[in-house]
């Protein structure tokens, strides 16, 4: 072999090696097919019956789609729809599963319970007429001979053949209910994830041995079981189960635009993570390679894009479009490299295979319409009320591990206060139950002024529901033990002051059980014998759910309902408003939150063309608000005297929301001041509601004409 040949050979080899190196490098740089797949959006124009998609399920070549108003199936390019005319409830479908043995379709709904559709016949199972734990069924799974339902009242398994219902997790729960969000079958049991209890494993499906699997994620958004492992989606992290109950995590590389909303793992180990504004893909857990798909937006004109994030480096992937413009991500379904994503404005689909355009079937496969539903009452007037996340936890004395240390309360002082209450009661009527003040567990509520503080008690792990007034004393008028449903504070001894008579009631019940809520509320009202507008205070994680429930209750009572949405993040505001706007409608926005969030809110409303007036507290109208609002905010109503000019340069955005480290008194005083200001605005609103009744136009006019309110307009960058 001569030198030239050897050189040539070497060169060739080097080139080949280079080529292989280049090829390997090129392979490493080539996104997988699930990234390069074309994205399509299916909307009503494509036959999708309802664009607000809430649940997805693949089965046997068909895609089952749950929406806010109906169930749909996409099969061989043809849509079939089942809605209210078929007998389905007017509740969003949260989950779908198909029994492989019988082909029966099981549906979990938002407040309508559990449904089975078998050859077109619909059967309902709810918490009134069956053993279902709760009517909000987040997840339904057919596992063997039983149907498992993760509900707001716990996890239950239904053996439909024998008609038996097993409850799980109840005995371990710190409260009578445990909100369970997701379940997945595993070869050796069932995994379930709750809202506050972490991850559970039911080891023996038949006898229900339960075990808490420690998981360092307090508020998981999703659960999957794939490749022999459990996968949990956290707020910004994907967890994978390892041996001996250890977990490994992969953080989402960048702050999620929008709150984490959905999570799934495909059968091939592709991990999808959805927030309200973006979609993330972890292509391989070991390599930690992420792809981010941004949504395009119509308003801002931002183009959607795909970014690859690997070893901390974020690089735009050229030539790949991101997600087309759609609504907020709600649910995901992945099979192999194919992904379906349900959004609030359509169904996203990415597949390496090109699907034919879908179309609506000419005749839906469904039985004859069921009996006509009873006539519904006209919807009451109600409003969206937005507030900050006001969770105040109480730490145990001496406990160094409290989650929040904003406040400390001396339990003996509170106990003494309650005993004083009891001692002052007359002997007539039913003797109240004196509850020992035991502080066990996390997140009891403290509310009201220091002088009249009501603390949610846990006696044998049962919380208390109460009705209080807004003003003037933030007084608790009536409280009922959750389990006993007997008075805990006797309303006969807490006569309302004259100035309170126009004040709305606040109903606060930590139970997620709508039946219990309703019964307690009715008991409270029966005790108080007074019908006033109702302010319902509820918080995460399913704000619109509570609006749904209480809309129904309010309809029956003819009571205006003020639905308060306590949002843990200001960025959830748009989503909440959007869902309210689409599903329920609202008339007035009352701003409780700080100027930052309020400004964002107003900007969002303007962008969406929502023209409802905003009724603000004095703390809102400030320069910070102005800056966030980004221009003319439309109509903002604030109680007189509106001190906005005083706050123009300083901003009182954090007033009441900064908890002084030096003690409860200051914090409570500050909070109370802000709350009172907001209450004042609320009081005006509710008075206007009382006068106008359900006439929405009348309400708006009444508000704007009230002498106590000042209509503030922003002109030329200044408040007028």
């Amino acid at each position, binding site marked *: 072999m001569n030198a030239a040949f050897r050189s040539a050979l070497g060169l060739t080899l080097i080139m080949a090696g280079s080529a292989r190196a280049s090829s390997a490098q090129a392979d490493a740089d080539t996104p997988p097919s699930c990234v390069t797949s074309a994205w399509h959006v299916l909307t009503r124009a494509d036959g999708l019956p309802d664009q607000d998609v809430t649940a997805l399920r693949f089965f046997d070549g068909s895609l089952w789609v749950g929406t806010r108003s109906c169930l749909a199936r996409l099969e061989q390019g043809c849509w079939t729809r089942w809605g209210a005319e078929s007998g389905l409830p007017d509740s969003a479908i949260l989950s779908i599963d198909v029994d492989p*043995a*019988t*082909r*029966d379709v099981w549906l979990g709904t938002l407040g309508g319970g559990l449904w*089975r559709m*078998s*050859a*077109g*016949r619909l*059967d309902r199972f709810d*918490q*009134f*007429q*069956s*053993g279902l*734990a709760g009517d909000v069924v987040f997840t339904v799974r057919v596992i063997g001979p039983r149907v498992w339902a993760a509900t707001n*009242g*716990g996890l239950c398994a239904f053996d*439909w*053949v*024998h*008609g*038996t*219902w*097993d*409850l799980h997790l*109840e*005995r*371990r729960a710190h409260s*009578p*209910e445990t909100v369970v969000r997701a379940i997945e079958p595993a070869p050796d049991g069932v995994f379930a994830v709750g809202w506050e209890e972490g991850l559970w494993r039911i080891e023996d499906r038949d006898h229900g041995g339960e075990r808490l699997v420690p998981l360092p994620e307090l508020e998981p958004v999703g659960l999957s079981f794939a490749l022999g492992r459990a996968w949990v989606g956290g707020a910004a992290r994907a967890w994978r189960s390892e041996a001996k109950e250890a977990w490994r995590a992969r953080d989402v590389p960048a702050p999620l635009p929008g709150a984490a909303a959905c999570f799934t793992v495909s059968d091939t180990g592709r991990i999808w993570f959805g927030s309200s504004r973006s979609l993330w893909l972890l292509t391989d857990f070991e390599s930690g390679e992420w792809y981010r798909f941004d949504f395009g937006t119509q308003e801002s004109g931002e183009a959607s894009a795909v970014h690859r994030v690997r070893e901390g480096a974020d690089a735009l992937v050229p030539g790949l479009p991101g997600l087309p413009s759609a609504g907020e991500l709600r649910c995901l379904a992945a099979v192999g490299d194919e992904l379906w994503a349900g959004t609030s404005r359509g169904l996203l689909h990415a597949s390496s295979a090109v699907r034919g355009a879908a179309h609506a079937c000419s005749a839906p496969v469904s*039985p*004859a319409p069921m*009996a006509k539903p*009873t006539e519904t009452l006209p919807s009451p007037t109600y409003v969206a009320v937005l507030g900050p996340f006001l969770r105040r936890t109480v730490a*145990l*004395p*001496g*406990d160094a591990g409290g989650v929040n240390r904003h406040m400390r309360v001396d339990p003996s002082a509170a106990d003494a206060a309650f005993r004083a209450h009891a001692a002052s009661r007359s002997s007539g009527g039913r003797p109240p*139950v004196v509850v020992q003040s035991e502080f*066990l567990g996390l997140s009891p509520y403290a509310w009201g002024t220091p002088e009249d503080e009501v603390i949610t008690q846990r006696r044998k792990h049962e919380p208390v529901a109460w009705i209080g007034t807004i003003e003037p004393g933030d007084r608790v008028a009536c409280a009922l033990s959750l*389990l*006993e*449903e007997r008075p805990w504070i006797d309303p006969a001894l807490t006569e309302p002051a004259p100035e309170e008579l126009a004040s709305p009631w606040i109903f606060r019940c930590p139970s997620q*059980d709508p*039946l219990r809520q309703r*019964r307690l509320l*009715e008991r409270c009202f029966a005790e108080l014998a007074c019908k006033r507008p109702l302010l319902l205070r509820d918080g995460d994680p399913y704000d619109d759910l509570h609006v749904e429930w209480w809309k129904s209750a309010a309809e*029956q*009572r*003819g009571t205006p309902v003020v639905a308060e949405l306590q949002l843990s993040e200001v960025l959830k505001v748009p989503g909440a408003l959007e869902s309210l706007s689409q599903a329920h409608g609202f008339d007035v926005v009352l701003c409780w939150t700080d100027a930052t969030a309020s400004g964002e809110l107003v900007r969002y409303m303007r962008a969406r063309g929502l023209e409802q007036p905003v009724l603000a507290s004095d703390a809102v109208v400030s320069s910070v608000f102005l800056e966030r609002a980004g221009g003319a905010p439309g109509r903002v109503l604030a109680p007189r005297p509106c001190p906005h000019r005083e706050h123009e340069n300083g901003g009182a955005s954090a007033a009441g929301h900064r908890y002084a480290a030096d003690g409860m008194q200051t914090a409570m005083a500050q909070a109370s001041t802000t709350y009172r200001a907001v209450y004042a605005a609320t009081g005006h609103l509710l008075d206007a509601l009382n006068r106008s009744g359900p006439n929405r136009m009348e309400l708006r006019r009444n508000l704007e004409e009230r002498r106590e309110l000042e209509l503030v307009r922003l002109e030329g960058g200044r408040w007028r």
Partner: protein
Amino acid sequence: MRNVLALLASCFLVAAGRAQDEVLTSLCGSRVCLECHVAKGRAQACTLEPIPEHAASWRALRKEPAAHIAALTGTTEPPTESSLCLGCHTSGADLGSRWWQTSFDNREGVQCEGCHGPGSDHVRARRAGTPGEVPPPLGIRKGERSFCDDCHRPRPSHDLVLAKSWRLAPEDREYKTPVNLAVAPDGRRLFVVGEHSNSLLVLDVASGALVREIPVGQRPHDVALSPDGSRVYVSNRFSHSVTVIDGASFERVGEVPVGDDPHGLVVSPSGADVFVVDTGEDAISVVDARSLTESRRLVAGRAPWSLALRADGRSLVATSLRPLSAPFRTEPRSELTEIALGANVARARPAVEGATMMMGIAAVPGRDVLLFTLTRPKNLVPITRLAQGWVETFGLGVLWPDGRVDQLLLDEPGRAFPDPEDVAVSPDGRFAVVSSGGADELALVDVERLLHTLESSSDEQRARVLPNHLGRSAEFVLRRLHVGANPRGLVFAPNGRELYVAEALEDAVAVVSMPEFTLTRRLDLGGPRVTTELREGERLFHDATVTQGRQLSCRTCHPDGHIDGLAFDIEADGLGLHPVDNRSLRGIFDTPPFKWEGTNPSLERQCGPRFAVFFTRLDPFTPDELAALVRYLSTIERPPNPHRAADGLTPRQRRGKAVFERARANDGDELPLEKRCTTCHGSAYHESGAVQDVGTTMWFDAAMEVEDPDLEDESDFGPMGIALYQDVLDLARRFDTPMLRNVYASPPYLHNGAVRTLEEIWTRFNLYQGHGMTHDLTRGQLNDLVAYLKAL
């Protein structure tokens, strides 16, 4: 640190307390109790006088009268095995043997723990403690004299047998009672199900001789053959099984467990699968014929009854006896269930409006049409139109290939065709024959004319006129033939020249020649030739000729002695007022009074002249007839409860029993007596014989003037407006306490049938806790309670 330890300790104690709840107590037996609790011993002795009869009470069940008493209570098991009999004659029967320690022997009769509750915890504490120390009475219940009343009550069954020396006739155990039949593919053998003989009778068609009588399970109902005749399958209602028999040797091959109360069955054309309706579970079991195991279970209509293959062999259709669950006071609506063969999944569920009691079904060869029998009840209006035929009407339904359903009546004006049991179609598809169990009659239908009647009518006529027209049957019913007592199952010979009729209460098979449609011979099944009092009563029960226009028999509303799932507006007191739920007749003899208001102290009173006033509108039964009818009613059997395992209650049911028997609420407060379940639902029958007001009266249960219609709570508590009634007029009505045995099988509930499930009794209809103190129950406790009730 101390606080942390205290916290940890409190958590542990809480956890330990929960673990304690999971360990349920068991029975130790009197001998263990007597180790300490003897007269003049240190431990407290029983304050009751020693009662030797208690110790002998189990032995009494082995004596001759016990079997006759058991028959009068609807008991199918031997008295020494019946939980009903053992409930009073021993201790521990209610729990079951899985809760008996080895030291416990139920043959020792009524023992200490029968009153004081299971003593295992108390004994364990005693043995673990210091000698001489008094152990805590863990789980021990203080005895009350009232406990005695649960068992020591007058029982008509005991009185009739012990005081009046009533006995079952020997022949009562020898009747065959043929209910269904099948013919071999070659036409030479006839297979007849003997319901009361618990056997399958094989007859030679030509000679009529009995070739073989094969024991099968308890209370067999239907028989089907594989297409090649090599296998014979028999459904057994009380055994919850299918017996498999070799078609050549007639030997039993096996027994396949299926669902509750199986009735009709059919074999797929390939012979690979056997489909059986589980009437008690609203399901269809699919049995793999090769492995003889159940491969899956499918949701069916309510109380499915029988099945038929479509002519193309690609699917089969099941009928259903009871209407689907629907809002109260709406017209009944029943379901046909179509199963796609091969995939073996439900394919369609055609609805049949206004109809119930769909029993027999048959395919019409060559037309891909199915015919099925049906009843059209008029339960929403008072039964004042008996003479006009406006209480019950009977007919045939037609299921077309596209799923459309038509209905036509077989009645004539003033002369109903009551209780159509079965339909068979001749092999050439020309004729259909329908059996009327209530009139002892067969109707010969010209199929082509029947279908022409429909096809030549407008949609409006088909939907609204024909299903209610009493005068159209003459267009397609060619002839009616009187046969023996209570004809049920029908089958044509393969050559179509003969029709075989199971004459259930004639104890024979009638042979009808076709197309002449004449009775040519009767095949004797070898049963008694004597008609006993019971058999006479059973005939009267099924006889509609006691009613004006033959419009209904007892069986019309009480098939299998049970229910039709309807609430009836019986009395002419106003439209829609005071409806009453239909009650089961199974095992009711010892549960007077009768009628929901409890105004009839005996069955004789219930079925006597009053019955004629409201129902039959003819002369009442003669005294002898009434006696025979009542005797038969008394012996209507109660099927074994599938929710109760052979060894007793499951832990879940046991927890439910604790809820049922609780005397304290969850907060520890004592429950008033009237708020405890056991006050009204104690004893082995779980009924007290008392008439009670439990706050279940609803606004439509009596006429009333509503003064203030603006009652805000009216719609808050379900569609019944119960709060309206309670708040406005405070009227209360008392109702007879129903027996809870087999309560799982008799929805809807309460006196007016307004409650669809057991859960609803307390989630919707116990607003003021008149029906027990239940508002403090957790979800789990309520589920456990329902599980227990289903096991009764």
